[in-house]
């Protein structure tokens, strides 16, 4: 069954969606979408380094993402520049650096579009293992961190008073995001990975009463978007990554319209 590239693509996509849903909710709550983008941009540097150093790209990507997460966390401690300014600097510096490094690696250049926009249809068995094992590990860590993240989102002052170790929790979550960006990159690509975090979570918000409902719904919306996108990709011969993002956006829009109609 796994021989069929479509089945593998669907499984891989759904795996990433199940991870991105709950994680994306926290991203949306804590206004970290731009942070996710910056991480995704730095992933290209990981791809380039992997090619130049002849190391597995998933590993170099993960390493670079984690490194940039720590770098960004460090920058958050200073007060002279706003977070979005710092992110703007680092995201583009990372992207530029990544493009230069990729330029040194002749073999990658051909695949650049694949890495930027994802190539779900080329997902192999080893990718599936990476997605599901890595994804499960990240999700398990997220479950542990969940109550602290909720307290932090509700009110940082209250969280501190209740003994939540604010900084470690924040850094831990950034590292989880880095890991999931590295995992999701293969599916939707560097430039679109953030959309899989943000769009399903945003689509789930109007229909959720509790944080957990929103997380579950976001995972469902993401999985549905993957299936819809894949179907569209085959049916209309469109690139798979962008098709998934378009499908997710369509689901989000449908949800908004439904909300509007219900309220009217």
């Amino acid at each position, binding site marked *: 069954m796994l021989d069929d590239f479509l089945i593998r693509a669907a499984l891989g996509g759904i795996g990433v969606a199940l991870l991105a849903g709950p994680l994306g909710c926290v991203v949306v709550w804590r206004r970290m979408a731009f942070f996710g983008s910056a991480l995704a941009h730095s992933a290209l540097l990981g791809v380039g380094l992997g090619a130049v150093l002849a190391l597995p790209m998933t590993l170099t990507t993960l390493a670079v993402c984690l490194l940039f997460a720590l770098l960004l966390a460090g920058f958050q401690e200073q007060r002279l520049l706003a977070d979005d300014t710092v992110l703007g600097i680092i995201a583009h510096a990372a992207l530029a650096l990544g493009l230069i490094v990729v330029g040194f690696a002749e073999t990658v250049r051909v695949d650049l579009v694949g890495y930027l926009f994802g190539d779900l249809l080329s997902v192999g068995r080893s990718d599936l293992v990476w997605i599901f094992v890595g994804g499960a590990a990240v999700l398990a860590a997220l479950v542990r961190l969940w109550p602290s993240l909720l307290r932090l*989102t*509700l009110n940082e002052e*209250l969280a501190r008073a209740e003994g939540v170790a604010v900084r470690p929790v924040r850094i831990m979550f950034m590292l989880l995001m880095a890991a999931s960006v590295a995992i999701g990159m293969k599916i939707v690509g560097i430039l679109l990975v953030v959309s899989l975090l943000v769009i399903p979570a945003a689509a789930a918000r109007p229909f959720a009463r509790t*944080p957990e409902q929103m997380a579950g719904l976001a995972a469902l919306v993401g999985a549905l978007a993957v299936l819809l996108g894949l179907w569209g990709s085959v049916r209309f011969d469109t690139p798979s990554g962008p098709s998934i993002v378009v499908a997710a956006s369509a689901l989000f829009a449908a949800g908004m319209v439904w909300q509007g109609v219900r309220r009217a």
Partner: protein
Amino acid sequence: MSGTLVAAHGVTVRAGARTILREVDLEVRSGEIVALIGPNGAGKTTLLRVLLGIVRPAAGSVERSAGLTIGYVPQRLRLDPILPIDVRRLLRLAGRSRKIRLQTALREVGAEHLLDTSLHDLSGGEFQRVLLAYALIREPALLILDEPAQGIDLAGQIELYALIERIRNQRGCGVLLVSHDLHIVMAATDRVVCLNQHVCCSGRPETVSRTPEYVHLFGQRGADRLAVYHHEHDHRHDLGGRVVEPERAPPAPDA
């Protein structure tokens, strides 16, 4: 000292070159309601943060009774509607508490009907009650409330202070609260501490309001307003705005 829940000794806090608190002494004991009053920028919230252990003082020390549990309601907790959450979920977050305990805490603050309401749909007064319930679930020996009555109308404020008094009477916990609402605070508390970077004056409300430091800090008008406060109504509202039957209403705080 027995009965002392938390005590600040000579606490000084600086932010850069600015001194926010200067050698502040403060003590809260079991079963007493202490009000911290003072003008904006007096360092009231900072002092609470020191007592909570969020801010470390540059000088001085904070002493807590062994195993002290503090229930805290921060100032102006603004809730971001991006986060979907109802009262039940919030209260569950307070601790691994059983359903009974959630309901007990909600009933204690008169908000049991709100269990399944979204936090975003609560009025200011209801929200404040729910936060109080959240703080109570941990069964605190000390309640620290930062401007609990902010954004609530006068009748609601009186109701809220009566509730705080009731909680103190039932649980015997200590209460430390910050407020701007001088007249109500003076009526509903055991001890008042006027803070303006240092402790200007402290003592029983009637005594404090006559001290020259107090009059200087709040002006004669502030001091006079205390005498003005006599709330007369032929009916009462609870925090949700519903009219409460007089015979079922809790006794008004002594003016």
